[in-house]
C-alpha cells in the first residue's frame, strides 16, 4: 500500500508555516514564510514549497489541518484546529514528557497544560494587547536600532539591567525613548525589556501552574536571552525545539493524521 502523507499549515499573525509528515509521523518538510497581508496566499505558497521539498504533489496529501490566526482562510484544508491544541500536540510529539507548553508568537502568547497524550487540560492566553508577545520585542528592537538576533543575545542578561515598569507596548516604548535620551546603555535596556516580557508571561504560567517538563514554542523561543531569564524564573531547564516556529504546524499535521485514521476506521 502506498504511504500516506499529511499536512499542517499554521497561518500566524506574522509567520506562516507548513509541515508535511508521513504515516510514521516523520517530518518530510517544513517551511517558514512571512504571512504578509494575504493569509490564504501565504498558506498556498508555504504548502507548495513544502511539497517541493518533500517531492510530493498536493493530491498525495491525504489530509491537511489548518491552524493559527488565519486557519479559516486555508481553502484546501480538510479540517481546522486552534493553534492552542496544535502547539500542545506538537510539543508532546517532540518532548513526550511535556506537561506545560509556553507558545509565544508575534501577537499572542499562550500557556497550555497537557496530559500524557498531548491533550489540552487547561490554557491561558494574553488579552488583546501586545504586551508579552513577540511584537513587543520587535517594536523595542526597532526603537533600539537592533536586529532581533542582537536583541536576543544571552550575554546581555548577565549584566546590569534597567527595569522597565510599563508592560504596555506603547508606554514601554516611551520609557525606552527616555532611557536612550539619558544615554542608558542599550544592553542594559534590553536586559530590562527581556525581564519585563518574562514577567508578563510568568503571570500566565502562574494562572495555569507548572506541570512536568516545560516546552517553549513559537518564534520567541529563538530569543536566547529570554529563554535564559525564563529558565531562571522557572528554576528548571526549558525544552527548546530545533525549529520552535513550526511546532504548531507539526501539531496540525499530526491532528490531520489522527482525524484521517478516525474517519477511515469508522
Amino acid at each position, binding site marked *: 500500500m502506498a504511504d500516506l502523507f499529511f499536512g499542517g499549515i499554521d497561518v500566524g499573525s506574522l509567520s506562516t508555516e507548513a509541515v508535511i509528515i508521513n504515516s510514521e509521523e516523520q517530518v518530510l518538510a517544513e517551511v517558514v514564510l512571512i504571512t504578509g497581508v494575504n493569509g490564504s496566499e501565504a498558506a498556498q505558497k508555504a504548502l507548495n514549497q513544502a511539497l517541493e521539498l518533500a517531492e510530493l504533489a498536493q493530491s498525495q496529501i491525504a489530509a491537511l489541518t489548518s491552524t493559527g490566526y488565519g486557519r479559516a482562510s486555508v481553502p484546501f484544508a480538510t479540517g481546522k484546529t486552534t493553534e492552542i*491544541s496544535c502547539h500542545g500536540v506538537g510539543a508532546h510529539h517532540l518532548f513526550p514528557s511535556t506537561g506545560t507548553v509556553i507558545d509565544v508568537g508575534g501577537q499572542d502568547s499562550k500557556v497550555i497544560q497537557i496530559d500524557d497524550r498531548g491533550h*489540552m487540560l487547561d490554557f491561558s492566553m494574553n488579552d488583546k494587547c501586545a504586551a508579552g508577545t513577540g511584537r513587543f520585542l520587535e517594536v523595542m528592537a526597532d526603537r533600539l536600532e537592533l536586529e532581533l538576533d542582537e536583541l536576543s543575545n544571552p550575554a546581555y542578561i548577565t549584566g546590569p539591567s534597567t527595569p522597565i515598569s510599563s508592560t504596555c507596548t506603547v508606554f514601554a516604548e516611551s520609557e525606552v525613548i527616555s532611557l536612550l535620551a539619558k544615554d542608558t546603555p542599550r544592553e542594559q535596556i534590553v536586559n530590562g525589556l527581556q525581564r519585563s516580557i518574562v514577567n508578563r508571561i510568568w503571570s500566565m504560567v502562574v494562572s495555569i501552574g507548572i506541570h512536568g517538563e516545560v516546552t517553549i514554542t513559537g518564534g520567541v523561543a529563538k530569543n536566547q536571552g529570554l529563554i535564559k531569564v525564563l529558565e531562571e524564573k522557572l528554576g528548571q531547564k526549558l525544552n527548546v525545539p530545533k525549529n520552535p516556529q513550526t511546532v504548531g504546524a507539526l501539531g496540525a499535521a499530526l491532528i490531520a493524521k489522527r482525524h484521517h485514521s478516525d474517519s477511515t476506521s469508522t
Partner: protein
Amino acid sequence: MYPFDAIVYLQRDDHYKRSDLEQRAQIDAMSINDTKDKVLKIPDRSDYLRDQRRSGQEIMGVLPALYPRELLWAFNILPAEIWDPPGEILLANVHLQASICPIVKRGLEFILKSPEIINSGYLFPHTCDSLQNLGTQVKDLIGVPVPVYTFYNPKGEFNKASKRYYSEILFNLQKTLEKSHGLLSQNQLKAACELGHKIDIRRQMLHAALMEDRFDLSNREYFQLIRAAEYMQGQDYLDLLNHVEINEQIGVAPRARLLVTGILPPGDDILNFLDESRVRIVSEDLLSGSRRIPIVEMDQPDDPMEYLVERFFLLPPCSTKAGGLDKRLQYLKKLIAKSRCHGVLFNTVKFCEPELFDQHFLIKSMKVMGLPVLNLETELQPGLSGQEKTRIEAFLEMLDEGVPV
C-alpha cells in the same frame, strides 16, 4: 415561612419545586395553547419604550441590579433598566476614571444624553461602590432634569436586622414616590406582587426546562427573552414568557453543555457563535438573569410588603450582596450538578469589582473539581474578535477531548 437560613436551600434536593413546576407547566400549556404561535416575537427595546412613552407611560431609568420592580409597577411606573446601552463612550469619560466598569460608563453616557424616554427619574440601587458613586455624581454634581432616587440594598448575611432594614428602605421608597405620585393603595401593590409572583414562577420553570434541554430556543433567543424583562411591562412580559413552549421530550444532545456565570450574558455574536458550534448554555447564574429570581417557589403574596422583603432574601447568592463566597460556590455546584454541564463560562465584565473579588476563588475551586473553565473578559463591545474566537474554539476542543459520551 420560608427557609431563611441560607444553608437550608442548599440542602434541599431540588432547586425549585419540580413537581409543582411541572404541574403548573401543564395547566399553563392548556390555557394558552390556542394563543401560541411558534415564532417568539420579542419586541425591540427602543421601539417598545418609545411606544410606551408615546402612549403617556411614565418611565424610570433603573441602573443595575436589585430593586423592587413590583413597587414601581404599583405606582404605574415602568422601570427601564440601563445595563449596556450601545454606542461610543465619549461624554462619560470626562467624569469617570479609566478603570471603571463599562456598565457604569455606558450608564452615565446614556444619562448625559438626557434621553427623552426617561421622564420619571433615575433609580440607583446600591449594587457596588461604582454605581453608588455614580448615583451621587449624577444627583449632586452633574444634575439631571428628572428626580434621582437611591436604594441602598442590605449587604451580607440575612438576619433580623437586615430584614428590618430592608423593610424600612422599601417603605421609604414608597413614601418618597407617594410625594409625587399620590398615596399607594395596598391593593395596587398586592396586584403588582401577584404579577411578579407569576413571572417568577414562569422564569423558574423556564430555567428548569433549560437545564433539562426541554425547549427549542437558541442560546441567543433564550437570552433575548431573559433580557426583555429589563424593559417590558410585567403583563406583556408574562404573556411573552407564556408563549415559550416547554417540550415534553428532551432535545438532541449538544456538542457541549455550558453554565454561564457573571453579570450579563455573552454578546449576541458570541451567542451566535456558540449556536453555530452546537454548544448549549444549559444554565445561567447571571446578575441580570437568574440571580434576580428567588431560589424557591414562593407562596402567593398575602401581605405585599412582607412578600417583597422575603423575596429579596430568597434571591440566589451574589457577589454584589457580599453574602459569603462559600455559599456562592455551594450554590454554583448545585447548578452544575443539576444542569449536567461540561464546563463553566465566566463572562466577566472588565473592572467589575464585586465579581472579580469572587472570581479567582471560584475558578480555582471549579478546576479542582475537574471542571473546565473559560474566562472571557468583556467590555460590552459588539462583535467577536479573532482572539475571543480562538479562546472559545480551544475551550470547545478541550471539552471535545474530555466530554464523557
